[in-house]
């Protein structure tokens, strides 16, 4: 019996939770998603309403005598709404100042259902390790704003150079040669710094720290297979095969570390005048796990482009995969295990299928986001992503 996924009942939700045990905070946001699914779709928010929400949040956080000005919508990203504004206030460390900030808020349902609390904590934890915005406040249960949100510092920069070509959300990016030499090494060194960052006890309470072994990948598989079960409208035999293969071949991870989860071109800012990466963004899929995941994700063909020879794939549009991996090994002192990397390539391509064909279809079809047209457009990349997945599984066979 196929359940009515648009009106999930408590029995079905409980069965999914029991079948796919996830990290505590991930279980909370996925369960909330199902509980709210039969509710209203996304309603456009006015800047005035968001202004009131930010004021309420700041007041609740004990900020006094502040002034908010220049609210404006920001473009970019297929998953969350973003509004820039300026806050005149007494910064606890720097004193009276006007701080440019960003409100990052979920729509009614998202291309990636994730936790603002986790995102807030990981950005705070990465401060001083890699360039990130200053994370200031979080309203993870939407007590003050219409939907869960975080407020962090506005960082100057662009996600792609004016002379780069790319598709929606940074896909298919081709960088001009001068960007490869300047941004490329930073792209790898920042990733290495993320993977070398200590997981300080108590710093990330919204993350369940895995023990070495297969616990982190087992939780990740549970997380995304649960999302597929919750969201997919139309089954895909290849997705089932890939999931079965991933279950049967889970590689142990001896030293789980912080994994960005969506590390790729399009998810960092840089300044064009000095070619400097100014912020690593979009930490919503971060977890503690195997660093091979980030390597496989960044190396996806959709997130890069071909070199001038028309054959060599450049990771992120920057460098061939061999050079990318060698630079990461040199920066971390860790060796890339090619079999584990292959596993995570299969995992990443399967996961992208979950997002594009499962969640993307559902949130766009039922009008749950602030940009259904963009999400619907992204659904169209699904078959291309699955073709890559098929090639990876054929190599395995």
């Amino acid at each position, binding site marked *: 019996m196929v359940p009515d996924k648009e009106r999930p009942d408590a029995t079905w939700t409980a069965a999914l939770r029991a079948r796919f045990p996830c990290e505590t905070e991930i279980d909370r946001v996925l369960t909330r998603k199902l509980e709210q699914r039969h509710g209203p779709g996304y309603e456009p928010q006015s800047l005035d309403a968001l202004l009131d929400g930010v004021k309420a949040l700041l007041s609740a956080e004990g900020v006094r005598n502040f002034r908010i000005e220049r609210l404006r919508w920001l473009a970019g990203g297929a998953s969350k709404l973003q509004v820039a504004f300026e806050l005149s206030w007494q910064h606890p460390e720097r004193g009276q100042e006007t701080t440019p900030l960003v409100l990052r808020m979920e729509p009614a349902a998202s291309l990636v259902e994730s936790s603002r609390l986790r995102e807030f904590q990981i950005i705070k934890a990465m401060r001083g390790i890699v360039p990130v915005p200053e994370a200031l406040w979080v309203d993870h249960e939407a007590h003050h704003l219409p939907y869960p949100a975080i407020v962090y510092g506005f960082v100057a920069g662009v996600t792609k150079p004016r002379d780069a070509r790319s598709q929606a959300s940074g896909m298919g990016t081709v960088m001009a040669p001068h960007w490869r030499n300047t941004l490329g090494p930073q792209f790898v060194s920042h990733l290495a710094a993320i993977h070398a960052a200590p997981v300080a006890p108590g710093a990330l309470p919204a993350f369940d720290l895995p023990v070495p072994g297969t616990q982190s990948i087992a939780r990740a598989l549970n997380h995304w297979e649960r999302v597929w079960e919750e969201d997919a409208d139309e*089954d895909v035999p290849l997705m089932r095969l890939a999931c079965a*293969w991933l*279950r049967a071949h889970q590689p142990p991870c001896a030293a789980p570390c912080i994994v960005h989860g969506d590390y790729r071109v399009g998810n960092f800012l840089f300044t064009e005048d000095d070619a400097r990466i100014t912020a690593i963004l979009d930490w919503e899929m971060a977890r503690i796990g195997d660093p091979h995941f980030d390597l496989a994700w960044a190396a996806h063909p959709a997130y890069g482009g071909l070199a001038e020879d028309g054959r060599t794939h450049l990771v992120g549009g920057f460098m061939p995969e061999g050079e990318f991996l060698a630079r990461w090994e040199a920066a971390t002192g860790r060796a890339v295990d090619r079999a584990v990397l292959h596993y995570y390539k299969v995992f990443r391509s399967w996961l992208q299928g979950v997002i594009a*064909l499962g969640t*993307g279809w559902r949130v*766009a*079809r039922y009008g749950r986001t602030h940009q259904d047209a963009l999400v619907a457009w992204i659904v169209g990349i699904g*078959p*291309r992503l699955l073709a890559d997945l098929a090639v990876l599984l054929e190599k395995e066979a």
Partner: protein
Amino acid sequence: MQLRTDLALHAALRSLQQVVLPAVDPENEPAQEQLQVVIGLLALLAARLPLEFTFDCDELERLACFAAELLELSPDSAAGVQMAQALAQGQRVLASARVSPADLQSEVKGLREMTGRFISEAYAAADDVRRDALSALVLAHQNEQLTRERAWLLPQGWEPEPEALPALEVLLAERKPAAD
């Protein structure tokens, strides 16, 4: 195949109504008017597209009855002979059009669900040899299907080598006859 016409139309409509329309200059009357017309046309399509096939079948059926009644008035005229041929052709087409696109999509969805469940269970229970056989079968089927879906979506521009994909018309012309 998930990016169907209904999804694209609903998403485009919401974008036009909620994002674009409020941003169009209210003083620009031609732009306001044309955008309202575009929204109206898309809304009409979104509402009626699922019924289009049934509408055409319904019309053909009633036309066939109408033509049969007309024939009784003057069956042997030159126009009557020609109409009788057209009527027979129409009735043949009608007889083969008993399944609606909605029925077809529902069956696709159902069989996808069942094959998916079968794969999950069979892989978990199989030894390595059977897993290899299962994988080969799934991959062969999926490569055929994905090639068609990618050809369908070619105008979106996701393909790195679009010229390497066969044309959708060619692929669909290869359609296998239905099994008995």
